C-alpha cells in the first residue's frame, strides 16, 4: 500500500515538472519581455543589456538548468514587473483566491451530492426534473455571463450586494455562487446517475430484507458506492474551479492570484508566469492524486491490486 502511495506521489511530481518545463519552453519562444518592461522607444542597446541581466540571452537549456537549480534552493526568481521575489508577490494575494476557491469547492460538493441523491431517489418527480434542468443551465452558461448577470441584478438593480473587491463577508456571496455553479451542476448530475446505478443493485434489496430503514439504505449502503465515480470528477472540478478563478477574479475585481497570472502572461513576466502555473499544476495534481488515493479508501476491491 505504501508503495502505491509513493508511486502516485512520484508520478505527481513528474507531472508538475513536465508542465513547468513545457511552460518554460513556450514562454521563451513567445517573444521578448523587454517590450513590456522598457518603453517603446528605448534603444536596442538598452534592450540587449536588459536581456543579459535577466539571463534571457543565454541558450534555453542553460536558462532551464539554472531555473531548476535555483528553484531547488527556494529561489523562484523575481518578477520582471514587481521586482520582488515571486513567491512573496503571490503569497500576498493567495488568501483571497484560496478562501474563495475552498468555499466554492466545498459548497459545490456538499450541495451537488445532496441534490444528486435527492434527484435519484425521487426519480422522475418534479423535484428531479427541475433540478436536472437547472443543472444544464449550470454548466452551459459561462461563468462570466452568470457573474455579470448577478452583478447586474444584485448590485445594480437591487443594490443588495457589493460588486467588487473582497473587504467584507458579503463580497463573497456572488463570486462564490458564480464559481461553484458549474462544478455543482456537474457533481449533481453525476451523483444522480451514479446513485441510479447503485439503487438497482441487489445488495440494497438484501439490506432491506434485513430490516434496515430506508434512509440508512440510501445514505449508508448506496451513497458510499455511488461516490466512487463521483470522486473522480470532483478531482476534475478542482481544475475547473482554479481555471474559473481567473475569470471570476476579473469579473468581480477580486484581488487574487488569478489576475496576477493573467497579467503575467500579458506582460511576459516569465518568473511570475512560471510560478503561477507551478502553483496551479501542483494544486490540480495534488487534488487528483488525493482522488486516486481515496479510491482505495472507498472501494476495497481496488486495495487488493497493490
Amino acid at each position, binding site marked *: 500500500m505504501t*508503495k502505491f502511495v509513493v*508511486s502516485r506521489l*512520484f508520478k505527481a511530481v513528474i507531472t508538475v515538472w513536465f508542465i513547468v518545463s513545457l511552460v518554460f519552453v513556450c514562454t521563451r519562444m513567445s517573444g521578448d519581455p523587454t517590450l513590456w518592461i522598457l518603453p517603446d522607444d528605448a534603444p536596442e542597446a538598452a534592450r540587449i543589456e536588459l536581456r543579459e541581466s535577466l539571463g534571457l540571452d543565454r541558450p534555453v537549456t542553460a536558462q532551464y538548468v539554472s531555473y531548476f537549480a535555483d528553484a531547488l534552493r527556494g529561489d523562484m526568481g523575481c518578477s520582471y514587473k514587481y521586482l520582488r521575489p515571486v513567491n512573496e508577490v503571490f503569497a500576498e494575494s493567495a488568501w483571497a483566491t484560496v478562501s474563495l476557491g475552498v468555499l466554492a469547492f466545498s459548497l459545490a460538493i456538499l450541495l451537488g451530492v445532496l441534490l444528486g441523491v435527492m434527484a435519484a431517489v425521487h426519480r422522475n418527480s418534479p423535484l428531479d426534473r427541475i433540478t436536472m434542468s437547472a443543472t444544464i443551465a449550470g454548466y452551459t452558461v459561462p461563468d462570466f455571463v452568470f457573474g455579470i448577470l448577478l452583478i447586474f441584478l444584485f448590485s445594480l438593480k437591487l443594490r443588495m450586494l457589493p460588486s467588487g473587491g473582497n473587504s467584507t463577508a458579503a463580497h463573497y456571496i456572488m463570486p462564490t455562487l458564480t464559481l461553484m455553479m458549474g462544478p455543482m451542476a456537474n457533481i449533481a448530475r453525476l451523483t444522480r446517475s451514479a446513485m441510479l446505478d447503485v439503487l438497482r443493485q441487489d445488495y440494497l434489496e438484501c439490506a432491506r430484507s434485513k430490516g434496515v430503514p430506508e434512509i440508512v439504505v440510501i445514505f449508508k449502503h448506496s451513497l458510499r458506492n455511488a461516490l466512487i465515480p463521483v470522486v473522480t470528477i470532483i478531482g476534475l472540478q478542482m481544475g475547473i474551479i482554479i481555471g474559473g478563478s481567473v475569470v471570476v477574479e476579473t469579473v468581480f475585481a477580486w484581488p487574487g492570484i488569478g489576475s496576477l497570472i493573467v497579467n503575467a502572461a500579458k506582460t511576459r513576466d516569465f518568473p511570475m508566469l512560471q510560478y503561477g502555473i507551478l502553483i496551479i499544476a501542483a494544486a490540480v495534481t495534488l487534488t487528483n492524486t488525493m482522488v486516486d488515493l481515496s479510491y482505495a479508501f472507498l472501494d476495497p476491491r481496488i486495495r487488493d491490486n*497493490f
Partner: protein
Amino acid sequence: MTAKTPLIELRDLQKHYRINKGIFGHRTRGTVKAVDSISLSIAPEETLGLIGESGCGKSTLSRVLLGLTPATGGEVLYDGRPVNRRTLPQFRREAQMIFQDPYSSLDPRMNIEDIIGEPLRVHTRLDRKARRDVILPLLEQVGLSEDALSKYPHEFSGGQRQRIGIARALVLEPRFIVCDEPVSALDMSIQAQILNLFAEMKKTRRLTCLFISHDMSVVKHISDRIAVMYLGHIVELAEKEELFRNTLHPYTAALMNAIPVPNPALRRKIEPLPGDLPSPIDPPPGCPFQTRCAAAQERCRREMPALNELLPGHFAACHFCKGGVGA
C-alpha cells in the same frame, strides 16, 4: 477406434497468465495457469463434452482453441495441420462458436440480418441479395421467420436469441463448433427446444462439436465422449456411458454425486465434497485435486498424475484409481 485423422487435436496446449506488479508492472507476482498442458483429440462428427466448474479453465480452453486468444504453449491441429498465422483464416471460417449469454453475445445495434450476415460479409464476396438467399433458409431451419431479419436483438426472448446465435455460427457451413454453455442461461423448457435444435443441426450438417457445460445431464444428453476438467487439467476422459458406469477419478465421482437428481426416491445421503474450488494462481505441485480428495496421499502432493489410459478408451489422471472406483 479407427485411424481417422482427428478433426481437432490439441497438443500440450497451454495458457498461462502472468500477474504483474511493481510501479511499471514489470515484476511478476504469480502465474495463473488457466490451461495447463492439455492434449485432446476430437474425431470428425464427434461431440466431445467438456465439463467442469468455475475456474477449471474450460472457457479459456475454448478461446485458445479457436485462436481468440493466443496460447502460451503447445499447438492446435486442424485436420492434421497446425493452426498458425497462415492457416488461421481458413480455420476461422470452418470453426465457429456459440456463446453462453444470449443477452450479450448479439450486438444490440445490429439487426438480425446484419448479425447473421456478418460472417458472410467478412469471408465471402456475396452481395446483399446472395447473402439473403443463404440466410433465409437457415433462419427457417432454426425456427425463426423472415420478418425477424429487420428486427433487433432486444425484441427477442432468450431462447430466440440463442437460435440467432446458432444461425450465425452455422451460416458459413463450418465443420467444427464450440458451444460454450449455450443453454445455461435458459429456462428448462426453452433449453429442451434449443438442445433438440442443436442435435438436429449437428446430425444434418455432420458437425464436430466441443460442448462445454457445468450441467452433467445436459452434457450427457448431447455428447459422445466426455472430458472432465479441474484446475486447468483434464482429469478424466471417456465415452459417456462408460464414464457413468465406471467412474475412475474421485473428482468426477464427487461431481456426479453432487448433482441434485430430479427423483426424490434417490435422495443422496453421501457427504458432499468439502472445500472450495482452488485458485488457479500458482497451484501447488502434484495433483490439482489433492486439497479436496479424501484419498490423497504423499505421492499425490509431489507428483502430477498423467492422463493415462486405464481402461480401453478411458483415461484418468490419478495415481490411485486402478479402474472402477464407482459413483
